[in-house]
């Protein structure tokens, strides 16, 4: 059935109406083309935002202190309080869902001018007192040396892991920073590692390249913070929502610090998971919209094809009559017309698909590389599965577009078809 004559028939009947065929096919072409461009752009946007997050743990929550707003147990409102070292153990002991706990204390910031000095060089950098677990919350690339470890914490070592930009400012190009000393707020620290952040979109009030990590305990001791903890970063165990950890930690910390249970403002927090889920939801929404618009455009194109097939069938009524007189069965005629419709739809759609994918790939090639950019648009791609399903949709819609004209073609008696002028 699908031999050369079959295709010859299709080709010659479409070629007879070249301009009209091309114009109609353009509808389907445009539908698929726009769908591909939109899907590619959607993925580019998503990849861009996701890249901005790097390997940042998305199932994380951050918790700091604010002033109380409700008097409780004889204590007045507007009371300031601080987390303490023993909160760390309490959180670990009481919240089984907790996976990583990374307390942080921010040391003298860079706002106060050059706070880090090495020989004749100086710079203003953010100083963070951290536990080794920090590098699991916001993993960075360790370019040289190592990140903080447990021994640094236990022994209150005066060691520092410096950001890439810190290295550039304080050291000459050919110098090996490892083992060298830098003076942070008047105290000497030995550099044990250099890092570069994997993302820039997730930061805590400063360029991460211009920050220095020192052991949490060292920071407390050297700069006389006592046992104060700045804030906690926490993640939940696999398959457990971090909101569970958030609720339990808030409850526990309120209790330990004599904060009224109903005081919603005393503990400041940021649930990244929720934000992330919202964003994921947003992208799903965008994606859904893309398909709705794309399919709509495609549908308009397919209706156009159905329309022109009706016209072609009408013009060929007599020819179809001849074919039937010569013994063409209704199913042969239907196969012929549906074949033409599928051929036209698929060819036009495939062209749109190829050109759309090509343009997306060209855009991808000309975008800056992933690691260096803090762009919101990155690496647009069209999933192979998406392309295949688009093609399947095309073939099916081609069949549907041909169905009405095909039924029309065989609904008239052969003799009426032969008499048709």
């Amino acid at each position: 059935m699908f031999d050369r004559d079959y295709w010859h028939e299709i080709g010659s009947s479409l070629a007879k109406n070249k301009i009209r065929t091309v114009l109609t096919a353009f509808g389907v072409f445009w539908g698929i083309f726009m769908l591909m461009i939109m899907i590619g752009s959607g993925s580019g946007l998503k990849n861009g935002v996701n890249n901005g997050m790097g390997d940042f743990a998305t199932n994380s929550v951050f918790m700091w202190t604010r002033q109380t707003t409700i008097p409780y147990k004889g204590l007045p409102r507007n009371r300031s309080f601080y987390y303490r070292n023993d909160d760390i153990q309490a959180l670990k002991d009481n919240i089984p869902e907790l996976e990583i706990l990374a307390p942080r204390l921010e040391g003298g910031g860079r706002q106060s001018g050059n706070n880090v000095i090495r020989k004749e060089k100086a710079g203003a950098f953010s100083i963070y007192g951290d536990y080794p677990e920090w590098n699991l919350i916001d993993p960075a690339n360790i370019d040289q040396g190592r990140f903080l470890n447990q021994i640094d914490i236990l022994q209150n070592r005066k060691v520092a892991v410096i950001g890439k930009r810190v290295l550039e400012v304080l050291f000459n190009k050919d110098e090996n920073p490892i083992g060298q000393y830098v003076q942070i707020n008047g105290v000497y620290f030995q550099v044990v590692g250099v890092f570069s952040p994997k993302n820039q979109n997730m930061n805590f009030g400063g360029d991460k390249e211009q920050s220095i990590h020192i052991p949490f305990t060292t920071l407390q001791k050297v700069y006389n913070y006592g046992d104060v903890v700045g804030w906690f970063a926490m993640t939940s165990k696999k398959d457990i929502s971090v909101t569970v950890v958030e609720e339990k930690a808030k409850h526990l910390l309120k209790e330990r610090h004599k904060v009224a249970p109903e005081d919603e403002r005393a503990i400041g927090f940021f649930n990244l998971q929720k934000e992330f889920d919202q964003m994921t939801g947003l992208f799903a929404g965008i994606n859904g919209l893309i398909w709705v618009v794309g399919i709509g455009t495609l549908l308009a194109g397919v209706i156009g094809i159905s329309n022109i097939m009706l016209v072609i069938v009408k013009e060929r009524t007599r020819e179809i009559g001849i074919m039937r007189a010569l013994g063409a069965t209704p199913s042969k005629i239907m196969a012929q017309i549906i074949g033409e419709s599928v051929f036209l739809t698929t060819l036009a759609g495939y062209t749109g698909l190829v050109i759309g994918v090509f343009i997306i790939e060209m855009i991808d090639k000309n975008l800056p590389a992933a690691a260096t950019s803090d762009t919101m648009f990155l690496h647009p791609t069209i999933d192979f599965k998406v392309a295949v399903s688009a093609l399947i949709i095309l073939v099916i819609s081609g069949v549907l577009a041909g169905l009405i004209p095909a039924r029309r073609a065989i609904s008239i008696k052969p003799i009426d078809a032969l008499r048709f002028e």
Partner: protein
Amino acid sequence: MIKLQNINKSYHMGSNSLHVLKGIDLTVEKGEMVSIMGSSGSGKSTLLNIIGLLDSHDAGEYLLDGKVIREMSETKAAMLRNKMLGFVFQSFNLISFKNAMENVALPLYYQGVSRRKRNIIAMEYLERVGLTAWSNHLPNELSGGQKQRLAIARALIGQPKIILADEPTGALDSATSSEVMDLFGEINQSGITIMIVTHENDIAHRTQRIIKLNDGLIHTDQKNGVPRPPEKPALN
């Protein structure tokens, strides 16, 4: 071969209805060559189309090669037309974008014969009607007589038992008409039943039997023996 009993056919247009065939009784034996005559509008084409399964009859019985034709599905009718019947029309009804060979080969396409094979067979039939040299030409590059010979080749290629021709010479001059009738004569000699609708007496007189229709009924049915030689036009 063909047996019609009390065939009736009406056309309905809105509230009007036109009774075209009012009870046709007719038997055509295998190998006969019959012409159908009658004034315009007497129902000749209607009758031929019913015999050719292109149209349906309202009442009466039609037996084609012993098979009762009644309320037949289009698929079955198409297959019967393909195997049993060959058509020749006044307006040729060739497919304009197919060349002579492809036009002739078309019925074999619907029989599922491979392209190579059917083109070889088509060339044989083109030779038989003297159009070998024109096999690559499109229909509009042929003369009327050539077109009709092409149509006859196409009607023959399916090796039908019956050829139905509705005014096959209606669009041709007398010399060309005579050629076409020679061809029909040869075909009839090979045992194929032929029915020709015509207005022309000399065409009719080259068949063995003339049926005259009048107002939807058979008026006369006369056998006039052997077909006359083409050189001497009939004096009737």
